[in-house]
């Protein structure tokens, strides 16, 4: 019964123009796990995410969500289970008001009346933007838009949350708030990000993609200490693991890790 939340077996994707975006990707994500997928631009991160709820169809291999193989017939189940927050909130918010946008998913699931309202209110409260419900999404700030986009997905009560670059384009305060929010979610979480400090804070496990293949998969801290791997995959250590730019001192956490 206890299936992994996400299971990829030899997943490959070939774009119609001949670009091989993913090659033989295999990994599993357990229930409740929080995993980061990192890699340079064009490594295949976004393409990989779009496979998790069937927006892109595989050209090889298979995807299983909670043990259910992704296929045309299982799409509704998969889309209900996997909530996807896109990188650009403007692509996610398309209804006239925040309330309508959050209600869009539950309405498609067939909810109406009081149950619908309850879901919408709960999701808006969860991300702290209940006061914005009557506003038009295009009038919100970047941080508010991001929260609204997350609320639209939470309203569908997914078991797995998939987020593409959740902290991109946010100011430091909004970023801090969002990281705090994401930490509290009980869902199975999969993030892609270039914000490696966020990855270090939220994800005990990291998968590194490089030119469409898995270059590494393991504990986050171990991966960030592997200088060769990072250099080969065009990545850098998170700022919190680099020395102080003024005095050159390495912070406590990194010092502790080096002693291990």
């Amino acid at each position: 019964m206890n299936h992994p939340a996400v299971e990829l077996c030899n997943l490959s994707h070939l774009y119609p123009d001949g670009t091989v975006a993913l090659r033989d990707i295999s990994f599993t994500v357990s229930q409740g796990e929080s995993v980061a997928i990192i890699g340079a631009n064009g490594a295949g991160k976004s393409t990989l995410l779009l496979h998790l709820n069937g927006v892109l169809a595989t050209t090889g291999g298979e995807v299983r969500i909670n043990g259910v193989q992704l296929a045309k017939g299982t799409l509704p189940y998969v889309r209900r289970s996997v909530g996807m927050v896109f990188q650009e909130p403007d692509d996610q918010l398309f209804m006239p008001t925040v309330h309508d946008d959050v209600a869009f998913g539950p309405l498609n699931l067939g909810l109406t009346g009081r149950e619908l309202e309850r879901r919408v209110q709960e999701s808006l409260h969860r991300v702290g933007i209940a006061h914005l419900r009557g506003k038009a999404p295009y009038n919100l700030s970047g941080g508010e838009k991001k929260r609204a986009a997350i609320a639209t997905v939470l309203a569908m009560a997914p078991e797995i949350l998939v987020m593409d670059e959740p902290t991109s384009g946010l100011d430091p305060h909004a970023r801090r708030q969002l990281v705090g929010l994401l930490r509290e979610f009980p869902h199975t979480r999969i993030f892609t990000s270039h914000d490696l400090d966020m990855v270090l804070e939220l994800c005990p496990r990291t998968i590194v993609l490089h030119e469409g293949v898995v270059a590494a998969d393991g504990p986050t801290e171990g991966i960030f200490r592997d200088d060769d791997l990072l250099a080969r995959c065009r990545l850098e250590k998170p700022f919190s693991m680099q020395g102080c730019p003024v005095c050159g001192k390495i912070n406590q956490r990194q010092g502790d890790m080096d002693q291990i």
Partner: protein
Amino acid sequence: MKIASIHGALLDFRRMELLAGGGTALHRLDPRAKLLVTLFFIGTVVSYGKYAVTGMIPLVIFPVVMASLGELPPGYIARKIALLSPFALVVGLFNPLFDRTVLIHLGPLGISGGWISFSSILIRSILTVGAATILVALTGFPAICRALEQLGTPRLLTVQLSFLHRYLFVLIEEGGRLSRGRELRAFGNRGLGIGSFAPLIGNLLLRTWGRAERIHAAMLARGFTGEFHLRRESRFGGRELLFTVGWSIAFVALRFWNLPQLLGRVVTGITS
């Protein structure tokens, strides 16, 4: 300013959607009733003869009553009508040139049939565009599509209409950005001239295409299956029936009795 105008147009469009979220009795009315009455109104306006002018004036009561009961800002509606009136002007432009038969004498001044039919076209366009604008502002485009579907329009068509509406926003947004990029590097001297527009338009198509696909992906991710569900449940009840029948009778009455003429006769005592 071009930039301001494209982004302004977008805000204007979105304002229409927000107006539709109002809470007046007219907003709460079933979209089908509003749609039917508006269609009947437009049919009535179109059915008038070529030279009808005064007969149509009393029909103004419909848009005026709807806009005021629906608490719509009159200036906004007027601007929307003004935006489309150039099309009517073009349609009627040549009437005064071709049709020079004098139909009305106002003292020494003779007014030709061309001018009368030109005014007639203008009044028609104001009435019909006004009514349609008010319908959208009171109902919202998605609800109108839903009403069309309930009234028997094929679903394929109504979904297409809904997407067209969504795509319009995307198109204007992307167009605004492109135009801003172009203007910022044109330094006020008309940029690269008309030649730069061709790649600009091609670019616009590809960009909006990409964006529309991403929005579609977001919709699919949230369980969209080709049908727009609406939050506001509605039903065609007694109020809707009263609204539809009431206005229909009023339109028929106004169509067959020329109210201004009757009034004129009463005032001048000819009726006795």
